[in-house]
């Protein structure tokens, strides 16, 4: 073999190997977090590791549709994860523990399944919250059927009972009382109060609404409204009527699955609950709603929000849910 042939073969082989090896090397050295719709696998990787105080720099990309990335119980703002583009975010953890990251964009029917975890190691062992949620302390059965026996004739207006509020005994105005009682039971109690015998039923509902509003500042309601729009409206609907953009798809998915497994149909994804249903909502205490949001619907398709939202955010969300029943003017 002559020299020029040898050199040529070297050149060809070098070019071919470079064309294969260089992309492989770059790909290996620049790891990406891939987001896919839950049906296609969700996040990859689904488990990451970090150390307290050390920045965790992530490069995220979507393999299909627009997703968002946020970490529960962390203040870092959510970032959009766009198809074919790379977004970057740097996370710093102050506490060790297991954090849940999740998709913040309504990417599909199983959007809420797009979750992963970040195991954060630190010098101190992870502390575990020992305070059980309020619904546990109160022994509330989240799944029991409920319905208010008395209902208002029209949507109660909170401002209508400003003067009466002053006459209500102090116990009605404590946060503990608010959180542990349903509006219907409070209405029953108020209705029995001698001080309010002059009020008609609707006015007592107005007083109940006023009590509820006194536990929700405008800032809390604004936060709750925003959280609802971001996380709940796609299923429950903008006005809470259970008619969000995914509601029909969820119902169709349930009936389709039920055809294959009739025995398990009852425990499958169901049509989202209507939060505008007075009978259901007026019979629900804030502690009950708080518990449902924290825990989720256990097989109904309602996800568990405990790992994502702080306690304060959940209470804000609960406060907003009652605005579907009460007019907070």
């Amino acid at each position: 073999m002559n020299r020029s042939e040898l050199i040529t073969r070297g050149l060809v082989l070098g070019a071919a190997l470079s064309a294969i090896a260089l992309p492989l090397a770059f790909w290996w050295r620049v790891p990406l977090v891939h987001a896919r719709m839950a049906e296609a696998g969700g996040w990859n990787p689904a488990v990451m590791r970090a150390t307290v105080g050390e920045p965790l720099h992530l490069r995220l990309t979507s393999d299909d549709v627009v997703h968002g990335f946020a970490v529960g119980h962390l203040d870092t703002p959510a970032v959009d994860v766009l198809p074919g583009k790379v977004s970057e975010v740097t996370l710093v953890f102050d506490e060790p523990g297991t954090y849940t990251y999740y998709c913040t964009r309504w990417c599909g029917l199983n959007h809420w399944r797009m979750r992963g975890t970040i195991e954060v190691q630190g010098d101190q062992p992870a502390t575990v919250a020992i305070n059980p949620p309020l619904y546990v302390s109160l022994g509330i059965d989240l799944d029991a059927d409920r319905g208010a026996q008395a209902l208002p004739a029209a949507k109660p207006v909170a401002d209508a009972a400003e003067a009466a509020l002053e006459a209500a005994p102090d116990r009605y105005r404590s946060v503990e009382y608010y959180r542990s009682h349903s509006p219907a039971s409070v209405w029953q109690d108020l209705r029995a109060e001698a001080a309010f015998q002059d009020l008609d039923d609707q006015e007592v509902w107005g007083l109940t609404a006023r009590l509820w509003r006194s536990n929700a500042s405008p800032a809390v309601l604004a936060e709750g409204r925003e959280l609802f729009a971001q996380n709940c409206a796609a299923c429950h609907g903008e006005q809470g009527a259970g008619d969000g953009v995914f509601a029909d798809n969820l119902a169709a998915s349930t009936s389709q699955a039920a055809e294959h497994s009739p025995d398990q149909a009852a425990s499958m994804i169901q049509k989202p609950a209507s939060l505008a249903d007075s009978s259901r909502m007026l019979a629900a205490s804030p502690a009950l709603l708080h518990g449902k949001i924290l825990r989720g619907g256990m097989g109904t398709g309602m996800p568990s929000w405990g790992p994502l939202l702080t306690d304060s955010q959940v209470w804000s969300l609960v406060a907003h849910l009652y605005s579907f029943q009460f007019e907070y003017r």
Partner: protein
Amino acid sequence: MKGIEFTANPSFKAFLKARLPQLAVFILMLGGYLFTIMAGLLGNPVGSTNFAIVFVWIAWWAVLILAAVPLFGRGWCAVCPIPLPGEWLQRGAVLGPASPRPTRRLLRWPRALRNIWLQTGAFLLLALFSTALLTTPLVTAIILAALLLAAITLSMVFERRSFCRYLCPVGGFIGLYSQAAPIELRIKDKAVCAACVGKPCYNGSASGYGCPWDVFPGGMTRNTHCGLCMECLRTCPHENIAIRGRAFGADLSQPSARLDEAFKSFVMLGAAMVYAAVLLGPWGTLKDAAYRIGTSGWFLYVMLVLALLGAVLPGLFALVLGPRGNARQFRQHFARMSGALIPLGLTAWIAFSLSFVLNNASYIAASLSDPLGLGWDWLGAAHLSWQPVMTGILAPTQTLALVAGVIWSGSIAKTSAAEARVSSVPVVLYCALMALIMLWLLL
């Protein structure tokens, strides 16, 4: 009529004969091809941002159908990297002279398959899966790798470039439409070839390899199977090979009587319509059927497409032609007259590709900036959003292209009809109908 002879310029001819410039292009193309496969395998699976999809199906396709084929015929084949590794392995050399004794005995391509039916089948196979191929980088990468492996395998078993000549899904239509190109490689003097001892242009010599495309240049009258590889230019001891400019469509005045090439015309014309309907049309049900590969809707789509391309279009053409002699005579008449569809087919593909390319060209800069989807921004264009480019010229250009196609096809039909002593009007009307359908689909 003999056009301008480019190889009359000694410097240009020497450039074409030199191996190093061609080798440099080959290395670049092969490197790019392998990189494209890697980008398809490793890059972002979102088609619109993946280098493999954007570069192959937008940039390469634009260059191929809008410039390379209409102007240079098989110009792409001259630089295509797919057959190179197999050919180098077959020869046992990259740059060196042809080995006087081949390292292994290679088979001749089976006689029954010495036609373009397999190429038409391969094209149809890719076309029917094109919704996945055009949008899924992994599929594109696998197909590109499969083509490379197929070319290598065939080179190890069969003589010369059997893959290019008989199997390449792209080579079939490039060959068909290369007859319309204003460039040709031909001999200068038949008598010189007849007297030439050893026929080194076909059999090879110390100066170069025998025609990789299994063509004897001395008998070549059409561009169809000439890959413009320049080997005959190197090997001809009599300097009897010329590359000339010529009138568009010069080969079509002597149409082929081959049925495989005739059907290729219908398949290509029909495929342009199907692509226009599926990729550019407003019919959601059709798109769904084409995209949901493996479903009953897709199988129905496949049956309809095959029926349209293989039966409806040629059947209608046969009806338009009317009866002629016995079956053999009719087949020959059918094949010769169908040559008139070649210009229209080419312009239909140009019209379709203009829509496709101008609407998607903006993806090219972004994918060049970040070819592996790793968040790079080499050209500062990675975050450019999609926007159509110069789509204002689409409707007039497409209309012009199709009208030109009908006129061009009409003139070919007139020549062929005169030779066959029949009227050209039915064929011209058929072409006009096809152009109108295409125009309706595009506009």
